[in-house]
């Protein structure tokens, strides 16, 4: 990372808007958020209700046909936007929070605490991520009942180490700057230095990390749901693909069932990646003019 690694929140938002790819990403994300909010208005049917004959190909009444229980696939696709975006965002936020706390403690206090926390972070990074997340979901999610919260917790617990490392190195370089030294000379407490001086200056990094982790979190959620570990009462794109595979939609050539959900996941993750690319271009000027 370049000379100046820390920016304020408003500045970071300005940077996002200054990049073309980030603007495209934001636009896609905005459309998806609108779809999620207005799902009840856009979807022609209740996604969980039997509305027609089973396994119908696309027709005027059902533009993406119906599934094996006679439910409208297009309505499922629209309603799935909610869960996929929500789980992606909240688990990325939670992972960044855990990572920020650990990175702050390790970077600021250093010494033995730093050593122990970084050992744990390294061990965590050595675990196969998806396998570990599956294990946590099976451990903590009830067979019946709310599985969404355990899934969010499992994804967050599987993905905080990168955030911890990033924040730690930023804190270490900040700690040596003169204004922190002056604050300490004036007798400011550790808590005051951390919350007033260090944390606000890492906000740009925190925003970038939430964005990066959100793409991964959406893909992990899709993988978990695809493997049949999602909440059966709710719908997500990964879950739709799980049912499509389980009901042989691929062998039967029902492309209208398994192509749209994958495209939606790709679109959502692509939006996040484009925003990330915009930020990266700014912070690493050598990569600018790349698109």
């Amino acid at each position, binding site marked *: 990372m370049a000379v100046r690694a820390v920016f304020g929140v408003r500045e970071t938002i300005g940077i996002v808007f200054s990049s073309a790819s980030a603007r495209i990403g934001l636009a896609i994300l905005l459309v998806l958020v609108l779809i999620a909010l207005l799902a009840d208005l856009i979807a022609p049917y209740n996604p969980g209700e039997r509305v027609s004959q089973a396994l119908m190909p696309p027709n005027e009444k059902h533009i993406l046909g119906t599934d094996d229980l006679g439910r409208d696939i297009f309505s499922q696709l629209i309603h799935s936007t909610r869960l996929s975006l929500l789980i992606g965002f909240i688990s990325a936020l939670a992972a960044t929070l855990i990572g920020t706390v650990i990175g702050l403690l390790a970077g600021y206090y250093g010494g033995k605490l730093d050593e122990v926390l970084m050992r744990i972070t390294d061990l965590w990074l050595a675990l196969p991520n998806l396998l570990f997340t599956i*294990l946590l979901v099976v*451990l903590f999610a009830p067979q019946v009942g709310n599985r969404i919260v355990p899934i969010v917790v499992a994804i967050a617990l599987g993905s905080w180490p990168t955030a911890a490392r990033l924040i730690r190195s930023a804190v270490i370089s900040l700690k040596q700057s003169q204004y922190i030294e002056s604050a300490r000379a004036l007798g400011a407490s550790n808590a005051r230095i951390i919350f007033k001086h260090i944390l606000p200056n890492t906000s740009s990094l925190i925003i970038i990390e939430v964005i990066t982790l959100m793409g991964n979190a959406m893909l992990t959620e899709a993988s978990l749901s695809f493997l049949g570990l999602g909440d059966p009462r709710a719908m997500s794109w990964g879950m739709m693909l799980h049912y499509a595979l389980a009901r042989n939609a*691929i062998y039967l050539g029902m492309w209208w069932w398994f192509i749209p*959900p994958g495209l939606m996941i790709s679109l959502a993750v692509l939006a996040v990646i*484009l925003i990330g690319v915009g930020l990266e271009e700014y912070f690493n000027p*050598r990569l600018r*003019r790349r698109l």
Partner: protein
Amino acid sequence: MSLASFLAKKIVSSVLTILAILTLVFFLVRLTGDPFAELENDPRITPETLQALRRLYGMDKGVVEQYISYVHNMLIGEMGYSVKFSKPVFDAIMERLPYTLALLVPSITLSNYLAYKIGVEMGYRRGSRLDITTLALSNFLRATPYFWLAIIFLYVFSVQLGLFPLYGAISPGLSFPSFEWFVDYLWHYAIPFLVLVVRGTFIFVLYVRNSVIDILGEDYVAVARAKGLPEKAVKSSYVARNAMLPMITVMGLRYAFIIDGAILTETVFSYPGTGRLVFEAIINRDFWLLQGVMVILSISVVLANLIVDLLYALLDPRVRSQR
């Protein structure tokens, strides 16, 4: 620090990591609850049978006692008996492991090689048509769920064109060491392999490209050019060579995380490998099988890390002196 003491330090920390993962697995697995709890409600099972089952699997002892015998057994390579597959854990794993390794190790290696070759070209010819198309494809494939890409390949090549089989690793009825067996194996192998190579190449090409662009801005490249070295020499001995260093870490660690790719690939193609095995072990709460797979996995993760560190130290002498 000499290479020998560097090596010694790495090996000690590797052993500690394996022990830490073993311990984590033991306690995580025991949090999943009693694997025999479901049998309690079965009227055909008497409490005596249940007791005997628990004793058979060592579940009647205390946690500490179980832990000690677990570590001891793992150290002597005794992995226990799989409840789900009714055979020794070691046999269950060894039956499946070759399929996973034979699919993933070559595909990771080939995609690493392609990503490196294409990435260097892209970085060198930034803004060219090759660069821009590959970049767009790469960003799209990074966003695509891996298993969905596999579904699309399966649909196009196997369902629509009918060129390849729909599922499995081998057609039933073929005996192992024969020419037909091998041809049939390759026929099943083609599509999963292709998906893994395509995705791996396009994802990792980006890392190489960006590090080549970084290196092209370095002073030593300007110096090499200024002193009149032919561009070919600059490219091969300054740019490509230095781009290799960060790649060893990123691409080497792909071998450590083989299992993550295997779980999804093997689900889509109903491939009988370790990925499905470990997934079934978790879902069925088959403690012994899960422990066995995790032990083998953690050892391979640590080994891959160790090899990456060593390669890095061999290629970059600065690393040896630093730590």
